[in-house]
């Protein structure tokens, strides 16, 4: 009997042994029986149970108790870790989902942004070409018409120039490359060196500007 009992200690059966070992009216309800009924209902739970119960006075289960406690703690700890990991992953995933949706929406809204950004230097050069043309030349007039055609088309897609000359200097949309006059209050944009653009309310490129204090500029 004892030998068999020791074998059983090796694995999960310890659990049942402990239940019986400690059986008192208060704790025995795990298997729905009192100590006396124990063996009768055991087959339903586990075939090896009777041996455990019969030899319940052996020293084996008593020794197992600290181990069990340790195992329980270990499991609880592992469980807590797993739950915490799960919660983290869930939070990560929720965030990911939320951002992903926002990102898809953004990509949809600004699908042309890269293309437009690449086109900006071409537009700049187009404007430079027009500025360098001979006034009153029919050729220039034609080129200007083509340029306007292009810009109209891009504006329909959401491209819009940044207001610059005469406006108060605003570093959120203007990039100052030079400053005239001394430092002073109320800076305004006095010249635009390169146009800035928005694409659907988003700044694509800041306008490159020359600034001066408003007062000094007006005095000139």
């Amino acid at each position, binding site marked *: 009997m004892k030998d068999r009992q020791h074998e059983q200690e090796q694995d999960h059966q310890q659990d049942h042994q402990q239940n019986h070992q400690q059986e008192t009216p208060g704790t025995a309800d795990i298997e729905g029986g009192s100590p006396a009924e124990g063996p009768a209902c055991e087959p339903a739970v586990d075939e090896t149970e009777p041996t455990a119960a019969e030899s319940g006075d052996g020293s084996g289960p008593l020794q197992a108790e600290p181990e069990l406690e340790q195992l329980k703690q270990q499991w609880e700890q592992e469980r807590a*870790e797993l739950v*915490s*990991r799960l919660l*983290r*992953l869930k939070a*990560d*995933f929720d*965030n*990911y989902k*939320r*951002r992903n949706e926002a990102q898809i929406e953004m990509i949809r809204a600004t699908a042309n942004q890269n293309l437009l950004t690449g086109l900006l230097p071409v537009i700049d*050069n187009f404007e*430079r*070409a027009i*500025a*360098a043309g001979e006034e009153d030349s029919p050729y220039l007039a034609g080129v200007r018409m083509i340029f306007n055609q292009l810009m109209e088309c891009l504006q329909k897609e959401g491209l819009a120039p940044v207001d610059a000359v005469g406006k108060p*200097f605003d*570093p*959120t949309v*203007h*990039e*100052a*490359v*030079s*400053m005239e006059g001394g*430092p002073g*209050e109320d*800076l305004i944009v006095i010249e635009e*060196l*390169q146009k800035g653009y928005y694409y659907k309310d*988003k*700044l694509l490129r*800041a306008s*490159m500007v020359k*600034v001066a204090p408003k007062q000094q500029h007006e005095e000139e």
Partner: protein
Amino acid sequence: MGKVIGIDLGTTNSVVAVLEGGEPVVIPNSEGSRTTPSVVAFTKDGERLVGQVAKRQAVTNPDRTIMSIKRHMGTDHTVAIDGKKYTPQEISAMILRKLKEEAENYLGETVTQAVITVPAYFTDSQRQATKDAGAIAGLEVLRIINEPTAASLAYGLDKEQEQTVLVYDLGGGTFDVSILELDKGYIGVKATSGNNRLGGDDFDERIMRYLIDEFKKETGVDLSKDKMAMQRLKEAAEKAKIELSGLMQTNINLPFISASDAGPLHMDISLTRAKFNELTADLVEATMGPLHRALEDAGLKPGDIDRVILVGGSTRIPAVQEAIKKVMGKEPYKGINPDECVAMGAAIQAGVLSGEFEKGQGLVLVDVTPLSLGIET
């Protein structure tokens, strides 16, 4: 426990990253950029600007725009604005606060803790100043780690066997070499060297100067006096440099760059990689001195180095990689964006400290030991 962010607080640019699902992710700022200029400005109305916006108004407000504050960390240097004196910690805190806010916007939750990187040669007082800057910004700095250490974490080298690593970091305006010893979660700094006035901007300038000279030879016009032309040249030079990392030749096309009595003038110059290498050979060579010095200080030969890691955007330049390979006798380790790998390493360390990593995986006990580190300034 909330997310802990990793911050690369740089001299010219800063980057913030966070661990998501076990992977470091760089957080873009509200302007959509992955790096934020380390620039702070005070407007006349007393408003504070940080990042790209501060940079855009710098020429209008030079006395009240602060750049490269990192160079002053840990010193008594102060910046006086409207009668109030600001310490380097306070200025750095403004940059950190902006990065914290960007991270909060991105994550949708409050962020209160961070890991911040510093150069390996930073002294205790410089490290403390960085920590203080974090506290002022409302961030509990869980750890200050060395930039090269962060880079090696980004590459996962801490998980490999014991090894010696050389980190070559060529940033926008500073150059650092560090030699690290990695051994089962312990990372020690054996030597550092560098030049804090050498960086990628110097390479751009060489291209600009070449273009100006060529144009003058061709047309007799000196573009260096024309602000608008110089602005266009600067952008074109940077673009050419980037293109030459992948191509053997690039074209610099700047129509209507200037005008003469005969009409408009255009720039159309092709630049080969060979010519670019020739123009910048001395800059590349200038990084070799500190590299040899670091090896000497560590008492090591090139053959003793197991791995070479590249950090900083300018390490994309093929001539830089070739020069390193020639001296070290091995191919440098790459694969992670060199502009972002320090911030990514900081995010990994942040993840370890916040328990984001499960046990046994990436459990690093980084031990930072700045030895007597000679630096050349």
